[in-house]
């Protein structure tokens, strides 16, 4: 028994569940299987020694995406009377099969044909690490080496949210997203949420904090915080904020704003856009990460909450 056999076992399981997601007739079962799929994929990331990614996949790929699609599937089932889907024609199936096989074949050829030596930026990442004051190279790439990517990603998140909000009906603009959650305030769910949410918030902050030197960081921590807020909402302990609320809007842009402000300040007084001076690098990076964590957490919650539908 060696690790390769273990990897092969997970690989077969992942492919089998992906096939179920694609081929099953029942949409709800497909979503449930997709949650399982995300979980196994995160196991795969651990085996690839990419623990930071494994955390992100477990939290977002499996957890939040699962909840989002589950909610969508349930509402579609309630709200529209689609019968069983029409069967796709044989011709289209054959063509799709040929396309899929061709792409797979080309990718397999590319993977098998990888050269003896692999290109890598790991030595450069390691060499520059002391200047950032960080110990986790992935966080260094995200916030320092390729900071512009991460900054633009914050903008993309806000744009996606604007797209979702803009689907609101005229009367609901400025209201609260989604349906009102009803739950018994003395019931089991509320009890559970009251106990679990504080623990979860603590874990979220911990994951964010260790991200400087060990696997973890702003995205992973923010996802956990978002999940805990959503849990409080599902238990009826909190309501989704109105999209008109100024505080919410301020937090939504805080990540990009702080990032940009630091970048411009360094452009004016330092060595260039987001070129951290080594003396303050760690402080600046942690400051940006705090703002980013808040922004990502609130954005994720509102992305799942969806389009405004009721009066504030």
């Amino acid at each position: 028994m060696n690790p390769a056999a273990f990897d092969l076992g997970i690989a077969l399981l992942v492919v089998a569940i992906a096939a179920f997601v694609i081929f099953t007739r029942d949409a709800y079962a497909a979503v449930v299987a997709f949650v399982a799929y995300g979980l196994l994929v995160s196991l795969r990331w651990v085996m690839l020694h990419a623990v930071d990614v494994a955390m992100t996949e477990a939290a977002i790929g499996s957890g939040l995406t699962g909840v989002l699609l589950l909610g969508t599937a349930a509402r579609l089932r309630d709200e529209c009377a689609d019968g069983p889907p029409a069967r796709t024609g044989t011709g289209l199936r054959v063509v799709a099969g040929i396309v899929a096989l061709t792409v797979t074949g080309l990718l397999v050829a590319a993977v098998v044909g990888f050269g003896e030596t692999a290109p890598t930026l790991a030595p450069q990442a390691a060499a520059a690490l002391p200047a950032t004051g960080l110990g986790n190279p992935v966080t260094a790439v995200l916030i320092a080496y390729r900071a512009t990517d991460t900054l633009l990603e914050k903008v993309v998140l806000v744009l996606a949210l604007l797209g979702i909000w803009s689907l609101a009906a005229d009367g609901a603009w400025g209201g609260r997203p989604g349906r009102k959650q009803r739950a018994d305030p003395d019931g089991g769910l509320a009890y559970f949420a009251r106990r679990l949410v504080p623990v979860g918030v603590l874990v979220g902050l911990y994951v964010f904090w260790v991200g400087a030197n060990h696997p973890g960081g702003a995205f992973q921590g923010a996802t956990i915080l978002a999940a805990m807020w959503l849990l409080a909402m599902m238990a009826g302990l909190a309501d989704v904020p109105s999209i008109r609320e100024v505080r919410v809007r301020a937090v939504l842009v805080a990540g990009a704003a702080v990032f940009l402000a630091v970048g411009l300040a360094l452009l004016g007084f330092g060595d260039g856009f987001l070129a951290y001076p080594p003396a303050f690098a760690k402080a600046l990076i942690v400051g940006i990460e705090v703002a980013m964590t808040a922004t990502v957490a609130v954005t994720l919650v509102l992305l799942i909450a969806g389009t405004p539908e009721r009066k504030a």
Partner: protein
Amino acid sequence: MADFLLIAALVVLATMASGLVPILRNHGDAERMMAAQLLGTGGVAALLLGGVAAGVDAVLDVALILALLAAFAAIAFVKRGSDTEMPDDAPPADPGEP
């Protein structure tokens, strides 16, 4: 010992997979909700075994996240599958619904 841990992880994965089969085949929402439960517990076990075997310490943090998010997903399953949520001013659910 690492070999033993990896075999154990594979056994857990196999039981998870075999448990998933009836859950996905049986219709009925309560049945489906068990999937998150099964995957949460089994996933944490497989992750801990595989991680300790590979000597990746940070895997414990992944397991911690998984334990939290599995509980969260399971709650979402229960909420979506039952009638506890309704539109603000909608009439109560039709009792004749299948």
